[in-house]
């Protein structure tokens, strides 16, 4: 009764498969083939790869191209613009000559490509570093959220009864709070208490794990509930009943019959959750309760630029744009993945 990942039991076909269709031994192959033919999804994937590669290369850019430390204040520094050496923060020369303004975009990769922020730091280098943080938190919390949601859904859906009741009510409880309100409350509490201390586990308030865990926890019911529904449906299906009938253990049924059938759904969720989580992280960081200094994320950079909105809009627009592009790309890719994996979608597609 062994099955391939993503494949239903070899003894009893899943109810969702079309009669007469060849056994789905190639679900992954078919799905990936279909995904590869989805131009929009492949375009989105390409955009994501480029952005991820650029962000991964952030230290190389900062060190070898821009020759700057984007986490260090450079208030009295100078740079080159139009062939002239100019201060990074320029003293106002109009009116009462109060205030200083950071240099704007020079469009030269080696000299403050997107200009400087109020602290004299290279905005483009920070953008790349911030992207690493935003992507890591977005992906990390999406994986964590999907993983935990899958475990909870499998336990609740398969065992049912009081286990299901307790877990489902717990999920309902979390669901009852507006996501942002819950995330803000948890962030403020953890920041105020200096981090997370649970037994031997200690996370400092400026650890990236803090926003990652908060965001994953807040979205848990949004993933767990639909998967639980699917598990409940699968639990009553003939092939699972048959497996129970032949005396298969719970663990075997869960891992060999249920997990492969819910995995496509989980995979469909992953990119969508990543996009949502990145937006949530940015919102928290914008409110100064997400990523903490010295780390930077696109949300913190948007926050840095709020005061410069009229004079140096690039500081805000650049991370905002990057965030929007990544979120759209992840959604387009997510749609492609859903179309590729969703059997119902495939059947309708044929019609």
């Amino acid at each position, binding site marked *: 009764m062994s099955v391939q990942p993503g494949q239903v039991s070899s003894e009893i076909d899943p109810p969702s498969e079309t009669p007469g269709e060849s056994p789905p031994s190639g679900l992954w192959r078919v799905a990936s083939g279909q995904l590869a033919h989805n131009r929009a999804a492949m375009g989105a994937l390409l955009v994501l790869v480029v952005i991820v590669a650029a962000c991964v290369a952030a230290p190389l850019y900062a060190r070898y191209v821009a020759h700057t430390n984007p986490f260090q204040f450079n*208030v009295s520094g100078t740079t080159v613009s139009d062939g002239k050496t100019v201060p990074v923060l320029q003293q106002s020369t109009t009116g*009462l000559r109060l205030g200083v303004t950071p240099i704007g975009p020079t469009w030269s990769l080696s000299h403050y490509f997107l200009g400087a922020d109020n602290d004299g730091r290279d905005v483009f280098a920070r953008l790349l570093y911030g992207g690493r943080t935003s992507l890591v938190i977005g992906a990390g919390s999406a994986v964590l959220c999907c993983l935990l949601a899958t475990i909870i859904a499998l336990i609740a859906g398969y065992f049912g009864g009081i286990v299901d009741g307790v877990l489902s009510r717990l999920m309902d409880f979390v669901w009852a709070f507006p996501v942002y309100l819950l995330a803000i409350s948890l962030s403020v509490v953890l920041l105020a208490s200096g981090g997370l201390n649970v037994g031997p586990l200690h996370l400092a308030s400026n650890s990236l794990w803090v926003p990652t865990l908060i965001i994953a926890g807040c979205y848990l019911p949004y993933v767990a509930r639909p998967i639980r529904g699917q598990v409940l449906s699968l639990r009553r299906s003939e092939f699972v009943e048959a497996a129970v009938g032949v005396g298969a253990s719970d663990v075997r049924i869960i891992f060999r019959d249920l997990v492969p059938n819910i995995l496509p759904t989980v995979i469909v969720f992953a990119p969508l959750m990543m996009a949502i989580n990145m937006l949530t992280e940015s919102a928290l960081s914008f409110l100064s309760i997400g990523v903490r200094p010295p780390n930077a994320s696109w949300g913190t950079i948007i926050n840095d630029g709020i005061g410069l909105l009229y004079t140096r809009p690039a500081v805000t627009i650049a991370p905002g744009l990057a965030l929007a592009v990544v979120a759209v790309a992840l959604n387009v890719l997510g749609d492609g993945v859903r179309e590729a994996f969703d059997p119902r979608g495939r059947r309708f597609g044929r019609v």
Partner: protein
Amino acid sequence: MHRNRRTMLAGYLLAALGVAACGGSSKSPSAEVSASSTSVTAPLGYQASHAGGTLHLLLNASAGSIDPVPASQVPIVQADADVYDGLMGFVKAPGPAGNVVVPDLARSMPLVSNGGKTYTFTLRKGIRFSNGTLVTVQDVLSSLRRIYTVPSGVAGGLFTSFVGASLCLKTPSACTLAGGVSADPSADTVTITLTAPDPNILLKLALPAASIVPPNAPRHNGGDTPIPGTGPYMVASYGPNSALTLVRNPYFREWSAAAQPQGYPNEIVETFGVPVESEVTEVEQGQADGVLDPLPADRLTELSTKYASQVHVSLTPDTNYFALNTRVPPFTNLAARQAVNWAINRDAVVRLLGGTQVATPLCTFLPPSVPGYEHTCQYTIGSSATYSGPDLTKARQLMRQSGDAGAPVSVYTANDPVSEAMGGYMVSVLNQLGFKGQLRALTNAVVGAYFSNSKNKVQAMLSGWFPDYVAPSDYLLNNLSCASFYPDSAANYNQAEFCNKPIDAQMYRALSAQATAPARADSLWAKADEAVMRLAPEVPLYANKQVDFVSKRVGHYAYNDQFYMLIDQLWVR
């Protein structure tokens, strides 16, 4: 810079002269002193046609207790100046003239006797509190005792020279000031006896802490509950998280245009909890009349260009520094403290504040406008004549010597945008040196108390000193003497918890010379300042200028060294 110093010196000398003239003389010098004080006439001249209206001011955080004794936050000092009076008062005139003291509730300058140790004040007649009761000499007595019973740093820092003060400081609940303050109701006189001549006693009696309040005022901190005063306004309502409303005191009649002129607006409303950026926008749009917080650096260019006529820049006597706690590691180590002093770029700090038009780099604890200031710099690259920049090589050498690399350091600051940016810079420099810096920003309402209390073991903090009066003793003795350190108390002003006996002796030598040989005293203060800086308990950062932004309809703006923007003198019609 020198011009400013001389200007301030003149004001300071006017005040000190009166006292100096009194020292050692048994005859009353009041005639001479009064002459100098009465020459300070109504500085701004009252124009009744501009009276009336409501002045709306905005503040990000509330400033805590409204009681005049512990008042230390500028907005509360500003409000209390319009509500309360002392025996003496600072002249409500623009600029350094505001450092001169004149009789306020006292009818004239005091009669000084007993070698400068006894001061006899005659109370003005017929003055009433805002609750209608007459001010009596008994009220003066109870108010002066209150300085010791209400917890604050003022009593121990400034009012130590009264006979009986030591008992009051030790056991505030048993404070009587017996032998130190006495009253003669039949002659309406109050006599203050000191343990030793104090050249600054009249300045101290002009502080909000020495305000005269009714005898039934609580012996503890009045907190949010307003206490009646004698000034032109009274507190109609105060919610520390919402607003402060001052309305006209119906019993006020002007008795000294110099000390307590009548105000212009009928009502002054300070609204709390408004983000600084919104404060600026509201004033730009005419929805409010003034910003009481430091203006955000990113708005300065816009304000100084588009709203130049509504922006007022004034030199302040404030000193601003980065305090390094000498009793909490790693700054127990002199080399670590000196390394930070060498590494911090004062020019960068000035840029963060908004440039050289807003602040000037500072290398000494005394700012340029204070007597005793000397234009030298111990921690600068190049010549020590002026600040030229940090010396990171020297800083790193000292760090290696200290062996403190890798030590975690929490940098505390207020949570307004300017302070947070500066705090970020400090963390950045500490990390450059090899510390593991972390920024902790606290709300403005609690920073003072939190930083001051040694229980909190704050390692490093961005702080500033807004002088009670412009005299070097008020800066150095209050912040860096052994006596100014009060362990486990929010009333402690010595945030670096610094104590060095030889430097203390230097400071007291300067203080005693102040009454008789001011020039020598200035030189001694400068030497004491230099000696303190050698031990680097603090990193002096900048002397700043006050930048006030008012609405288009506001007129008659005046800045005063004691009270900053004279809010009661603003016209809103």
